[in-house]
């Protein structure tokens, strides 16, 4: 099993969600996060004083997936989140040792 984590632009979330749903992905966890990579932050001005804000708002998506599907999930995220501009984000995959569904106690593949 794999955990697919993606950091994307917030306004692309709907596109990504729909693309993943079309692929048959049954669930995901989404959180609002801040960070920076190559994209620069922005400046804010309060009473004439300028401040630089380094961290840019992003959305983090986390999906648990079978090994066989993980690359396809990642590919779909990359395609649906891309704007070809700096700051589009990243996707990474890490191996997962086990998964347990809390309600039923199902484990591994059955819990996905």
């Amino acid at each position, binding site marked *: 099993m794999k955990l697919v984590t993606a950091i994307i632009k917030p306004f692309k979330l709907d596109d990504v969600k729909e693309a993943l749903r079309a692929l048959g992905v049954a669930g995901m966890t989404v959180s609002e996060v*801040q960070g920076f990579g190559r994209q620069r932050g922005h*400046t804010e001005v309060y009473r004439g004083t300028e401040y*630089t804000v380094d961290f840019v708002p992003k959305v983090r998506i986390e999906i648990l997936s079978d090994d066989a599907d993980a690359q396809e999930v990642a590919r779909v995220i990359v395609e649906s989140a891309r704007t070809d501009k700096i700051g589009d984000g990243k996707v990474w995959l890490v191996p997962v040792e086990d998964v347990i569904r809390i309600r039923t106690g199902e484990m591994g593949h059955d819990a996905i």
Partner: protein
Amino acid sequence: MDSGNTAWVLASAALVLFMTPGLAFFYGGMVRSKNVLGMLMQNFFCIGLVSVLWAVLLFSLAFGTDIGGGLLGGFDFVGLKDLGIADVAEAAENVPGLALTIPPLLFVAFQLMFAIITPALITGAIADRMKFAAWVAFVALWMLFVYTPIAHWVFSPEGWLFQKGALDFAGGTVVHINAGIAALALVMVLGRRKGWPGEAMAPHSLPLTLLGTGILWFGWFGFNAGSALAADGIAAQAFINTHLAAAAALLGWVVVERMKGGHATTLGAASGAVAGLVAITPCAGFVGVVPSLIIGFLAGGICFAAIQMKFKFGYDDALDVVGIHLVGGILGSLLLGFFADSAINPAAADGMFNGGGFDLMGKQLLAVGATLVWSFVVTFVLAKIIDATIGLRVKSDEEAEGLDVTQHAEAAYAYGDFGSMGRSGS
């Protein structure tokens, strides 16, 4: 001069000014959190810009001596000349036709507050996507070419619609129909928000919207009861009518939405109240209590249905200025043709239900039609001109990032210390 009248209109002018921040919060709560300052600023900026234009030129063009045909006032009050002289009664006589019992400078101030909120009403339609500089240019041009002429036609005793005998107690045509149809013309040029209508663009703070609704309702007593320009029985009639119409419309909207969707919503209650306030505006001092309840109830139900039109016709009136202000304004202006009652106000003609026949309705139709045509056509042309020169819309990535940061370099909500914000150059 009458000191009681003066005291009430002084208070009313302040009440009407308060409506614009109220409107800003009403709308501000309905947009997404990345655009709330953009919305507030579009509204607040009107207070600054319109006030200066009004004093320098626009009051004169609206209420100065007619230049001919009832189309526009002259330049007699440029810079509010001759209105602040020591003899207030003599100064009042300088304003043609109004027979003011209050100082003319107070009339200037009271009318100014109406002039401020009218372009501000349009901001609800254009939410989330208009460039701030384009908005500033639009307001200045729109006040000169659209608001001021129509205010002269309807509110000045020398205006052609006033002379025809069309009735508008507090601004159904000048304020609400005018802003509503202008909003439609502007969004037709501006285009839809990115992602509309597919994406959810849910209100970010309904508590703000409800607070704004309360401020609007409170201020509307100045708007309508103040429009009597006197502290008298007609003001009292307008006051109670205003309140009851808003209350009935709140019920009307919520009842219809409960029947159709199954829930009574806070946004529905707020929207219904505003729809009722809009519809009663032209009627406030010309009708009795029972007609006010009917007008309000109808406004709530009909405006609820009207806001669905944008999905059918595909124009992105983001916060329903067309559905509430245009439709509510037309509804009130035309229902006056049925309910106007000279027993309530001797200055009113009788409507169809009070033995007046079709005469008044014909005049109301004329006033509504003239406002619709002038406002739509001129607004559309102004929008095209601004679009072709400085551009109406923010860039696509600016729209995605939000108006607050891209147009104003500010964030509305900064929770916690997690922002890593450093002062530039330190």
